[in-house]
C-alpha cells in the first residue's frame, strides 16, 4: 500500500501540530500570572538595577557602589544585618531543633495538640506578634515585673529598642519556619535505621549522633536557609523593636527612598542585598533542592 505512508505521515504531523497547539494553550494559562509578576516584579527590578549605575549627575557611574565602599556607615549596616541574621538563625536552631525532636517523639495525637503552639504564631500577623513583644519587654512590662518580682534584678532593665529585644522578636517570628521543616524531616526517618544501629551495638547516644541526626540534616539545612534569608531582608520587626538603634539593610533602603528620595543609593543597596541572597541560595543549591525548599513550610 504505497498510498498509506503519506497519509500516516500526514496524520502524525497533524497530531503533532495538535499536541503543540494544546501545549501552547496550556502554557497560555500561565500568562495572567506571568504578566502580573512581570509588571510588578521583573520590570521594576530591571529598572532599579539600571538606576543603581546612574549617579546624581544623571550619567552612568559607579558612584552608588563607590559610596558604599567609602562610607563606613554602609559597612556597619551590612555587618549588623549579617550578624542579626546569623544570631537569629542560631537561636532558632538551638530552640527549634529540640522542640522538633520532642514533637517527633511523642504520640501523634499529643503532637497534634502541641503543634498548635507552632501553628498559631505561624498564622498570626507578624505585626501583632511584634506588638506583643513591645508591650512585654517595655520598662514596666510583664518581663521586667516578673524579673523584679522574683528578685532576679532590682531596676527595670532596658529590654527593647536594642539588639537583644530585636533578636528575641525576630527569633519568635522565625522559629516556626525552622521547626516545621525539621519536624517533617524527622517524621520521615525510617525507625528501622536506629533499630539496626542499636542491634549492631551502638549506644543510644551513638544512635542519635551517627544515625538520627545526620538523617535529619536536610530538614535542618532547609529551615536554617529559610530563616537566614528571610532575616536578611526583614523590615517590620527590627524597625519596631530596634527603636531606630538597629539599622539593617532593609531600613537603609527605606530611608533612602522615603527620606532622601535617592533612588540610586537605595537601588545599589537593594542590588547588593539581592546578590547576597542569590549567592547564599546558589551555594545551598549544591547540597539541596532549593526550588522545593519553600514548599515545606506551607505544606503544613
Amino acid at each position, binding site marked *: 500500500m504505497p498510498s498509506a505512508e503519506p497519509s500516516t505521515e500526514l496524520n502524525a504531523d497533524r497530531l503533532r501540530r495538535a499536541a503543540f497547539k*494544546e*501545549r501552547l494553550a*496550556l*502554557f497560555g*494559562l*500561565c500568562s*495572567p*500570572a*506571568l504578566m*502580573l*509578576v512581570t509588571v*510588578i*516584579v521583573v520590570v*521594576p527590578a530591571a*529598572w*532599579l538595577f539600571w538606576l543603581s549605575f546612574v549617579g546624581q549627575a544623571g550619567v552612568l557611574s559607579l558612584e552608588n557602589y563607590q559610596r558604599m565602599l567609602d562610607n563606613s556607615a554602609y559597612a556597619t549596616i551590612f555587618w549588623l544585618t549579617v550578624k542579626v541574621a546569623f544570631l537569629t538563625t542560631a537561636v532558632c536552631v538551638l530552640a527549634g531543633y*529540640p*522542640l522538633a*525532636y*520532642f514533637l517527633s517523639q511523642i504520640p501523634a495525637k499529643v503532637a497534634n495538640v*502541641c503543634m*498548635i*503552639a*507552632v*501553628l*498559631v504564631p505561624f*498564622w*498570626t*500577623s507578624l*505585626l501583632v*506578634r511584634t*506588638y*506583643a*513583644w513591645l*508591650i*512585654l519587654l517595655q520598662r514596666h512590662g*510583664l518581663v521586667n*515585673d516578673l524579673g523584679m518580682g522574683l528578685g532576679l534584678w532590682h531596676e527595670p532593665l532596658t529590654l527593647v529598642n536594642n539588639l537583644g529585644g530585636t533578636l528575641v522578636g525576630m527569633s*519568635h517570628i522565625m*522559629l*516556626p519556619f525552622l521547626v516545621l521543616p525539621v519536624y517533617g524531616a524527622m517524621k520521615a526517618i525510617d525507625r528501622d535505621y536506629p*533499630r539496626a544501629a*542499636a542491634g549492631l551495638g551502638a549506644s*543510644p547516644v551513638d544512635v*542519635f549522633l551517627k544515625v538520627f541526626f545526620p538523617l535529619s540534616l536536610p530538614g535542618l539545612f532547609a529551615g536554617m536557609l529559610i530563616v537566614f*534569608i528571610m532575616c*536578611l531582608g526583614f*523590615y*517590620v520587626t527590627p524597625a*519596631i523593636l530596634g527603636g531606630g538603634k538597629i539599622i539593617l539593610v532593609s531600613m537603609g*533602603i*527605606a530611608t533612602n*527612598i522615603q527620606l532622601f528620595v535617592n*533612588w540610586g543609593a537605595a537601588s545599589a543597596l*537593594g542590588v547588593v542585598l539581592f546578590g547576597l541572597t542569590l549567592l547564599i*541560595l546558589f551555594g545551598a543549591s549544591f547540597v539541596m533542592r532549593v*526550588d522545593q525548599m519553600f*514548599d515545606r513550610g*506551607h*505544606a503544613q
Partner: protein
Amino acid sequence: MKAWLDAPASDTQITHKQRLWLYLLAALVMLFLIAPTLIVIPMSFSGSRFLEFPPRTWSLTWYRHYFDSPEWMQATLVSLKAAFLTMLLATVTGGMAAYGLARSKVRMARWIYLMLISPMIIPVILLAVGAFYVYVKLRLLNTLAGLVLAHSVLAIPLVLIVVGAGLKSFDASQEMAARSLGATRLEAFLMVTLPQIRFSVLTAALLSFLASFDEVVMALFISGGDNATLTRNMFDALRDQIDPTIASISTIMICISSGLMALAQVLRKRRAD
C-alpha cells in the same frame, strides 16, 4: 511514674529520666512561642491606659475606641476589600498557572515556575520599592487596584505551591478518560479535576486572603490616604506610642487568623482523606 521515668523512651534510646531536660526545654520553647500572642488578649480588655498584666480593671474602652473611630473603620474596610479581591485574583491566576505548568510539558515550565515563586525569595522590601516605583509611573499609588495587584503577586507563590501539590496527587488519566468520552478540556477540568482538588484550592484561597490581610511592608510603600490598610495604620501608631487600641485590634486579628487556621486544618484533613 517511676517505672515510666526509668523505662527507655524506646528500645534504642535513653530513659525518660535521662532526658527530662528535653521535655522541660520543649515546654519552655512552646511557652515562648504561644504566650506572647495570647497575653495580648486579656490586656486588650484592660481599663487602664497602661498595658498591664493581669489588668486591674476590666473594660471594653479600647474596643469602643476602635469601633468608634472612622479612620480605623475605613482602614479595616480597605484591608478586608483588598484581602477579598486578592484572594479571588491570586487563586484564579495562580490556579490557572499551576494547572498549566502541571499539564504542559514545556521545557520552560521550570523557569516559569521559578519566576512565579520569586516573590517569595526576593526580600519584600525590594518588591515594595519596585512596586512603588512602577506605581508612580502608572498612577496606581494609594489605589485599591494597585494594592490588590501587588498583594496578588505575593500570594501567587502560595497558590502555586498548594494547588500544585494537590494536582500532583491527582491522577491525570481521569481527565483523559473524561475527554475521550467527549468532554472538552474545560468540562473535564470543571467536572472531574476541580471537585477532587477543591480542598487544595480552598486552602490556597485562605492563605491568599491572610497573606494580603496581614501584609505590612508593601502597604507601607504603596497604600495611603483613603486607601491606607489596617496594618499600615497600626505600624504608624506603633512607632509613635503604645496605643492600647492596638491591643484590641490585635485581638480581633488573632481571632480572624486562628479561625482561618482551624478551617485550613479541617481542609487539610479532608485533603489527606
